[in-house]
């Protein structure tokens, strides 16, 4: 009961406020609480005023033919309410009466309904009356003048013949239905070609019989081809027995079953479910309320669609359109619909269904139910795999790059070593050439010149010239020898590292006029040639660096060895330098020193401080290590 609802709430609210006020008055209370109470009271009054200013909601009275809570009523109601909700978002006021005329339709019952409704709606403004289905429509038609005079009528689901009768009646329009018996029967014959016998199930109420008669008119046309059996009002036990005994070339057509001949009441959906449990052949129907209860399908009308159509008409009428100018609709609203579970039960392939068929109750496969999740999961998995693959590829590439870098590095070291040794080889060859050939020939010439000068037959003038020639040749030979020595220290091969170092120190001391103290310990005689050459070259470089840059009047060279290492130290006492800075300078040959030492697996260390000299040490392992 919506109508008295709001005032009732307000009354309650008011009472609560006043109780609160009394309660407050009895106690010393704070002004804040009092204020709050006042504001509640004020806002309640204000709301009431606002409600009164809104336009009144449209008032619809719906009259259903059947008792409440039948499946088909629910379908109609859903359709009608959807349409009304769309047309009136703010809502309409709906009063529903379930007349239950399917079971009782005697004159007194009808008269009592008339009285009851007149009393109930006396003095109320009614904007629209909506009779649903045939019996309710006939009731409204009969009692319109007394009950709802001048109220527009929009009917829902009235059979075609009845609708034709009210075409053009002022203030009346609606939705009519026509059962597509042909469509259903033909579809059934196409799906089950061997069907020869139809059992037509319908109830025994007046309306059941009227509907059956209507269908029979159509079915009579198939009398030649099909054996058609009617079961009007056959009580359920017998009906079930009969259905269970049906032969395979049979089919069942369900119409309407409200009552059996004994006066027991049913709803058609219940009847369908009971028959379906025992029936060995497919059942067809004519409206979609039964779909899902056991029929396989057919060309079905839809109570819900009819309701929605009627609701749409109701909206138009409530918005002021003249009902008699709105044509009656809904007649061609059939749709081939099938129950997927029944299709499976009877072995029907979807492809054989009439084009445009709707299939309901399809049990979704795992894929249909969780397709998105599965797809997302698979995608995630794929992405993950992809990332892993990329990382693996990346890793292997890096390993390969590192490996090739390592290879390149060792190749570069080898190459540098080969370059150095090739250079030394070439130098050795060149030095030998100079020494063995050029220098020796010069010596031979000098000897010859000397011999000539000594001969008694030579005049003093010629003797002097020859002596000069001999001296020139000696000088030249010395120079060539010196050059050869610079190119390659033959002394290293002849006398070994210690003597070669000493000799180098002597030469430096003589040339630079500085003291060079060279001390060599007990050096192994079988020192590898590349080690002795390395040490000699490093010492030579260090000594000449010191001579050029250190401004030192003293240098020390120490060459010692123990059972592990051979150790060289070249030290000056001069100005020193910044080691970090100097390493970048190419002029000092530090890089080439390091390279030479590295090639024999040695370690080169440079200590230097500005003002306190420089010490360069080299340690080379004596046992040859694998590189």
């Amino acid at each position, binding site marked *: 009961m919506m109508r008295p609802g709001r005032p009732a709430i307000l009354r309650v609210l008011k009472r609560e406020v006043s109780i609160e006020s009394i309660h407050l008055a009895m106690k010393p209370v704070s002004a804040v609480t009092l204020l709050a109470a006042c504001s509640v009271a004020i806002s309640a009054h204000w709301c009431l005023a606002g409600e009164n200013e809104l336009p009144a909601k449209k008032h619809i009275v719906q009259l259903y033919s059947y008792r409440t809570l039948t499946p088909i009523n629910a379908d109609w109601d859903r359709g009608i309410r959807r349409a009304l909700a769309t047309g009136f978002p703010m809502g309409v006021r709906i009063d529903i009466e379930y007349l239950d005329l399917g079971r009782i339709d005697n004159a007194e019952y009808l008269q009592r309904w008339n009285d009851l409704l007149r009393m109930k709606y006396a003095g109320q403004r009614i904007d629209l009356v909506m009779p649903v289905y045939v019996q309710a429509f006939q009731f409204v038609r009969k009692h319109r003048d007394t009950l709802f005079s001048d109220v527009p009528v929009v009917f829902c689901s009235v059979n075609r013949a009845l609708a034709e009768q009210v075409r053009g009646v002022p203030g009346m329009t609606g939705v009519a239905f026509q059962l597509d018996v042909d469509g259903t029967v033909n579809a059934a014959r196409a799906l089950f070609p061997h069907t020869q016998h139809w059992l037509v199930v319908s109830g025994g109420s007046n309306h059941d019989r009227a509907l059956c008669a209507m269908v029979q008119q159509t079915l009579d046309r198939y009398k030649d081809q099909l054996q058609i059996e009617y079961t009007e009002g056959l009580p359920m036990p017998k009906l079930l027995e009969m259905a269970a005994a049906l032969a395979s070339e049979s089919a069942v057509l369900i119409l309407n079953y409200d009552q059996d001949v004994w006066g027991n009441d049913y709803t058609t959906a219940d009847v369908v479910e009971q028959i379906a449990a025992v029936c060995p052949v497919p059942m067809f129907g004519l409206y979609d309320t039964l779909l899902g209860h056991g029929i396989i399908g057919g060309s079905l009308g839809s109570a819900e669609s009819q309701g929605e159509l009627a609701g749409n008409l109701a909206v138009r009428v409530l918005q002021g359109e003249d009902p008699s100018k709105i044509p009656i609709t809904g007649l061609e609203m059939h749709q081939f619909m099938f129950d997927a579970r029944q299709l499976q039960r009877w072995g029907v392939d979807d492809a054989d269904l009439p084009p445009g068929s709707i299939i309901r109750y399809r049990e979704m496969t795992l894929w249909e139910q969780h397709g998105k999740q599965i797809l997302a999961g698979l995608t995630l998995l794929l992405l993950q795999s992809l990332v892993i693959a990329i990382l693996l590829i990346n890793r292997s590439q890096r390993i390969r790059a590192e490996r090739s870098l390592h290879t390149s590095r060792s190749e570069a070291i080898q190459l540098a070593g080969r370059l150095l040794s090739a250079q030394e080889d070439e130098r050795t060859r060149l030095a030998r050439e100079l020494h063995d050939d050029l220098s020796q020939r010069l010596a031979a010439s000098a*000897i010859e010149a000397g011999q000539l000068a000594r001969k008694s037959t030579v005049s003093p003038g010629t003797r002097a010239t020859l002596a000069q020639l001999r001296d020139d040749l000696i000088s030249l030979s010395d120079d060539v020898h010196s050059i050869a020595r610079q190119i390659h220290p033959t002394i290293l091969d002849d006398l070994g590292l*210690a003597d070669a170092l000493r000799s180098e120190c002597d030469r430096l001391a003589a040339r630079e006029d500085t003291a060079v103290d060279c001390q060599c310990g007990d050096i192994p005689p079988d020192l590898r040639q590349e080690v002795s050459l390395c040490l000699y070259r490093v010492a030579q470089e260090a000594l000449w660096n010191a001579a050029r840059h250190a401004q030192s009047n003293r240098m020390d060279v120490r060459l010692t060895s123990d059972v*592990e290492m051979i150790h060289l130290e070249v030290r000056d006492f001069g100005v020193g330098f910044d080691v970090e800075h100097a390493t970048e300078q190419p002029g000092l040959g530090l890089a080439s020193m390091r390279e030479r030492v590295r090639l024999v697996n040695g370690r080169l260390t440079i200590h230097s401080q500005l003002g306190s000299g420089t010490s360069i040490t080299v340690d080379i392992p004596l046992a040859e290590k694998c590189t």
Partner: protein
Amino acid sequence: MNRPRVLLADDHRIVADGLRRILEPDFELVAIVEDGRQLVEAALRLLPDIIVADITMPQLNGLDAVAQLRKAGCSAKVVFLTMHKDASYAVRALQAGASGFVLKHSASEELLVAIRESLSGKTYITPAIADCVQQVSSARLPKASLLTPRQREVLQLFAEGRTAKEVASLLHISTRTAENHKARIMSLLGIATSSDLVQYAVRHGIISAQ
């Protein structure tokens, strides 16, 4: 009187020819050989009074050849004739047992002098480097007491009383290497016992006396 018998070793034919002309008037040139091995073989076979040899020669250099001859009991005088105007060579030549050191290109003036000096039991060194040789010949002997930094470490650790195993683990070397170090150091320093080692270390400030 018999002329002294000379064996000439020089791998440069053109030089050898020049030398032959210098030598032949005064000496009996018993053979001219071209490398160190031939020199050893010919000297032992021909027993010359004096050998005139180049230092730098193929197969075996003059110094090593003479060392071999001395070992084999050959007492012939040796004069080295070389291109190397270098005191180091001269010192080594004298060490090897030579009594003359002449630069090749001065041969026409000095060779005969050097040979005669040698034969009379003296030593002749070409004047160009004679002074240097005097200076360095004593200083140039290998200094046994020179130790490497590693040897000083090892010496200190042993002198402090550690075992070879401890020394090895401290220096990240094998025990055997540590022992080798110790033996080598003791032989270098002419030390026989561990207590001498400690004394040496104390004396040289490697460890402090307590």
